[in-house]
């Protein structure tokens, strides 16, 4: 009989024939803090979905392997059952109702009630709330976390750090909580708040609760965790005791080499010293991808990669410059100051943008390929129009001719130029987006997540296309991607964004450890290493 709280044994999971988890084994002991780290898509969230019995797992055929709680095999089918087994989760986005008091939030849907005359006839839902007992329970939970805030305060307007603690208080208020999962809990917190949170985690662990700590911050993991498990591409790379490892090793394990990078290093790369885009202190309020003060210089004719983990702000840069989300900062483009928050201005200045949200922002799914390709140029540059004086009619002939050219040049597979873009495959949709951006004759092209949701063959085509644009037409390309491998295959240099700032700029040939450390915001550690 071990004293393991939780055993995850040989767990594998397939989504439609696509293996996303392969033989994962994790043990969690009482009072242990077990860190879980991995890039986006490494399988962390799938694993947690299995642990919580989320419907998405069971509606796609369940999983292989075993989950044991206190050495007894369990079959968790719903989040509610997970709760009954004593598993709790502190969500990244707060599940708090602002208009309610702290106590009401802690007791949300677990309210304490007393029977009354009506409820005896009509049932439990008509029982009266016992605010006094609810407040007492809330107080107890808050005290465990050393929070000296009144339990009857309304949540609206509290600092974010407090809200995080209320979420935790809700979990520990649940009776028989044994295992607590923290999903990137410090991502939204200020430094001092994060420190408090880590302290609270240690305290909770000392009371015997087992904690799974999902984080990308290596320093925090080193600081509080007892063990760390690294996942990569759904595989269990390693589990190590913290005392036996280092940040550098973890970073290396996290990145690894996925595929051999077939980088055809051509000698005739014509980058210049001329700066085409200079970004100073850029802030972008893009939800989930906040940019908080970025400085970046882009040389004419180069392919610049922007990488980093999800939610760190790398996608915010292009969206901010294109005026899609509110932005501020100082931008010099092509020798002129670029006015922010003005999409039309950015397009007119000669910046093209292929959005990461292909279906949401990139395309009019119910319109034809030809109209999608011509649309921006028509609206902004008044091309493809027949002027009737009062009305400017679209010139179908010109549009068709141009579309046919583009379809040929970019090899868009379609039945005809009038096919609706919603019916195309992901790769061909992406090409339509690129075609539209090219139709604007841009000087600089932003391409975000160009290969997301496209099959492998098409990925290569899209990347080759970008390379070709750059080499043949001298177009400057800024490519943002979550896939480090693809950035490393075509970019001249790669800026890594962490927590809304540029953590550093690396050569595509830099080592895995360097990339890993930068992506987890630990470039200090890298400096220390090179210093020693």
């Amino acid at each position, binding site marked *: 009989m071990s004293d393991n709280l939780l055993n995850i044994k040989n767990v594998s999971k397939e989504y439609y024939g696509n293996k996303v988890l392969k033989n994962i084994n994790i043990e969690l002991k009482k009072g242990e803090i077990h860190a879980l780290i991995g890039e986006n898509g490494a399988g962390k969230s799938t694993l947690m979905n299995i642990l919580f019995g989320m419907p998405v797992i069971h509606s796609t055929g369940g999983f292989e392997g075993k989950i044991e709680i206190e050495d007894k095999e369990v079959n968790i089918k719903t989040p509610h059952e997970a709760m009954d087994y004593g598993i709790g989760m502190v969500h990244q986005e707060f599940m708090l109702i602002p208009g309610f008091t702290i106590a009401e939030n802690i007791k949300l849907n677990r309210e304490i009630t007393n029977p009354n005359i009506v409820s005896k006839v009509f049932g439990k839902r008509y029982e009266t709330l016992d605010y006094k007992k609810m407040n007492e329970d809330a107080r107890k939970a808050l005290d465990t976390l050393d929070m000296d805030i009144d339990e009857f305060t309304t949540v609206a307007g509290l600092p974010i750090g407090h809200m995080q603690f209320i979420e935790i208080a809700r979990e520990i208020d649940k009776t028989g909580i044994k295992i607590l999962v923290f999903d990137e809990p410090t991502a939204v917190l200020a430094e001092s708040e994060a420190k408090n949170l880590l302290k609270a985690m240690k305290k909770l662990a000392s009371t015997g609760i087992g904690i799974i700590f999902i984080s990308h911050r290596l320093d925090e993991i080193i600081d509080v965790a007892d063990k760390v498990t690294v996942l990569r591409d759904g595989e269990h790379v390693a589990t190590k005791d913290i005392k036996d490892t280092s940040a550098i090793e973890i970073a290396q394990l996290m990145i690894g080499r996925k595929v051999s990078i077939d980088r055809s290093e051509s000698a005739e790369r014509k980058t210049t010293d001329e700066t085409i885009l200079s970004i100073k202190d850029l802030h972008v309020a893009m939800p989930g991808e906040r940019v908080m003060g970025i400085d970046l210089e882009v040389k004419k004719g180069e392919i610049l990669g922007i990488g980093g983990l999800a939610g760190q702000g790398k996608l915010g840069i292009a969206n901010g410059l*294109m*005026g*899609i989300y509110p932005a501020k900062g100082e931008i010099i483009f092509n020798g002129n100051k670029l006015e922010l928050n*003005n*999409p*039309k*201005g*950015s*397009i*007119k200045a000669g910046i093209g*943008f292929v*959005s990461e*949200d292909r279906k*949401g*922002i*990139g*395309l*009019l*799914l*119910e*319109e034809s390929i030809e*109209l999608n390709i011509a*649309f*921006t140029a*028509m*609206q*902004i540059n*008044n091309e493809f*129009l027949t002027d009737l004086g009062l*009305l*400017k*009619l*679209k010139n179908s002939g010109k549009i068709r001719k141009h579309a046919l050219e583009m379809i040929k040049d970019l090899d868009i597979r379609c039945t005809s130029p009038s096919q609706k873009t919603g019916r195309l495959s992901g790769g061909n949709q992406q090409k339509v987006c690129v075609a539209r951006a090219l139709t604007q004759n841009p000087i600089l092209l932003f391409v975000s997540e160009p290969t997301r949701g496209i099959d492998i063959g098409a990925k290569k085509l899209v990347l080759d296309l970008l390379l070709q644009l750059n080499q043949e037409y001298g177009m400057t390309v800024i490519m943002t991607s979550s896939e480090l491998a693809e950035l490393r295959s075509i970019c001249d240099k790669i800026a890594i964004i962490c927590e809304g700032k540029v953590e550093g700029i690396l050569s595509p040939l830099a080592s895995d450890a360097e990339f890993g450390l930068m992506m987890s915001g630990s470039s200090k550690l890298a400096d220390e290493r090179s210093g020693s």
Partner: protein
Amino acid sequence: MTEIKENRNGFKDIVTKIGLPTLIIAAFWILTLVTAAFLDMSISTLLSDTIKRAGMNGILVLAMVPSIQSGTGPNFALPVGIVCGLLALVISIELGFVGIAWLLVSIALAIPIAVLAGYFYGKLLNAVKGSEMTIATYTGFSIVAFMCLIWLMVPFKNPKMGWFIGKGLRETIQLDSVGGAQLLNNFLEFKIGGVIIPTGLILVFLFFCLLMWLFTKSKTGLAITAGGMNPKFSIATGLDINKNRIIANIVSTVLAAIGIIVYSQSYGYAQLYNGPLMMAFSAVAAVLIGGATASRAKVSNVIIGVVLFQGLLTTALPVANEIFVGTDLSEIMRMVIQNGIILYALTQVKGGDK
């Protein structure tokens, strides 16, 4: 075996392409027509009435297209445009115009008034994004009630429209008195096998359909459509969505204003006061029956919808009266069909996430 399957698929495709509501109403209409034939009623009279009523309601239904395309939903505030048209119409009478001059002056006056009203209405809609339909409905209601005050207080002197005693305008103004009744209908009117074709009316309706169709193919029209279909796309493309929504609602309001003038001349009367109150709903229902949704509408939807809806209503009235003597079943049917189709469309509106 396989053939049957294919057939079924084919049938399904047709249903999804034309739209279930359209098919149901069409089938229903044909059914009433067949019943009418069995009851020995004059089919040609029924068809004449259908054509006439489709023509007179057509432009009002057409007003739904720009507002739906722009993403503000069906123009439930149609009465805003309608009262503009009515105002122009009575001013034109007051100024002493008669006949075709009266009609042209009415339309000429209606346009600037409606542009102004549509501008402010568009501004209002931009302020209440997300609840356009509810607010539009009450804007329409309020404006009708407000105009009741105006009709009652306006110091017009022309005896053709005043009460016999007291101030203010009459509830219904006979357009006969200014030579305005059926002006368009009578233009080049002819008969085919007993069916009367009001050529002028139909031509005017089709002319506006053509204009609208051209507008949807223009730079502005395409920008409006894109804004309605995918606002994020439009922002990324550098379009001014708010401006386009205002333009769309100006166009819609102007069409409503012209629409009521054409409607009134065909009807022979101009109905003031609470006349326009519920007019938006039947226009909304018509375009939906034609296969539009709360977020997409085409000119073809208008033509199909107005013919089917008005056809059903005109045919059902005498048929119902024949079967259920002394009752008003057709009014009940109108209520159920009209509001049923709007409810159906509302359940199809996206953005109802939790």
